[in-house]
C-alpha cells in the first residue's frame, strides 16, 4: 500500500478505537444510576479502556487497537435509601462509582481525537487529489 493510502487507513483505525471509547463512555453515562439488583449487592462499576499500537503488515505501519477494558476499582459511594430494592438491611444502598463530570470530559476528549483523525483523512485525500490535478493541465 502506498504511503498516502496507508496514512488514511491508519487514521481510520484511530476512528475505530475512538468509536469504541465512545461506546464505553456511553455505557458509563447510561448506568450512572444503576444500583444493585439484589439487596446489599454491588451496583454498576465504571469501566475504562486502553489502546495499544500494533504493526499492521497490510497497512504498512503502526495502527492502533483497543487493548482491553478494565473495571474501575474506586470505592462506591453509599446513600441512605431503604426503599431501594438494592439496599442492604441497614437501609444503605451502594451507588455506581461513575462521576458524570469525568465522563463528560472523557467524551469531549474522544470527540476531539475522532475529529483529529478525520482531519488526517481529509488532508491525505486532498494531497492525493491535488497530485492527480497535475495530470489535468
Amino acid at each position: 500500500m502506498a504511503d498516502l493510502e496507508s496514512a488514511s487507513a491508519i487514521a481510520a483505525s484511530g476512528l475505530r478505537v475512538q468509536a469504541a471509547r465512545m461506546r464505553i463512555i456511553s455505557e458509563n453515562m447510561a448506568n450512572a444510576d444503576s444500583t444493585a439488583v439484589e439487596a446489599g449487592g454491588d451496583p454498576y462499576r465504571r469501566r475504562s479502556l486502553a489502546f495499544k499500537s500494533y504493526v499492521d503488515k497490510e497497512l504498512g505501519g503502526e495502527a492502533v487497537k483497543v487493548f482491553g477494558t478494565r473495571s474501575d476499582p474506586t470505592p462506591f459511594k453509599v446513600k441512605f435509601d431503604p426503599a431501594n430494592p438494592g439496599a442492604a438491611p441497614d437501609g444503605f444502598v451502594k451507588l455506581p462509582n461513575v462521576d458524570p463530570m469525568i465522563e463528560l470530559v472523557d467524551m469531549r476528549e474522544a470527540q476531539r481525537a475522532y475529529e483529529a483523525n478525520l482531519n488526517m483523512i481529509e488532508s491525505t485525500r486532498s494531497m492525493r487529489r491535488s497530485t492527480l490535478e497535475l495530470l489535468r493541465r
Partner: protein
Amino acid sequence: MAIDPLSASKAYSNAANAARQIMDGAGAPGLAGGSPVQGPSFGDVLNQAIGGVVSTGKKADNAIANAAIGKGDLVDVVTAISAAEMSLETVVAVRDQAISAYQEIMRMPI
C-alpha cells in the same frame, strides 16, 4: 454511463495491437531502426488498472452490504468507498491524459 470500462479497455488494446501491426508492416524505417520497445502495451496497463478499480469497487460494495444488514462499521464503508473513488479518479486521469496525447498527434498536419 453507457460505456462499460472493460469494453473500453479492450477497445484500447485492440487499437494498440492494430497500430503495432501497421508499424511492423511498414517496417517503420524512420524509427531509428532500433528494436521495438519491450514491455506491456498501454492497453495492458489500462486493463490492469481497471481491474484494480473493479476490485476496490467490489470491496466497497461488500462494505455497504454488510453495513445495510447491521454487521459493518460506518468507518469501513466510508474508507472503502473513498478508496474506490480515488482509484477510479486515478485511472480516469491517466486515461484522459493518454487520449489527449493521442488527439494531439491526430491534429498534427502531415
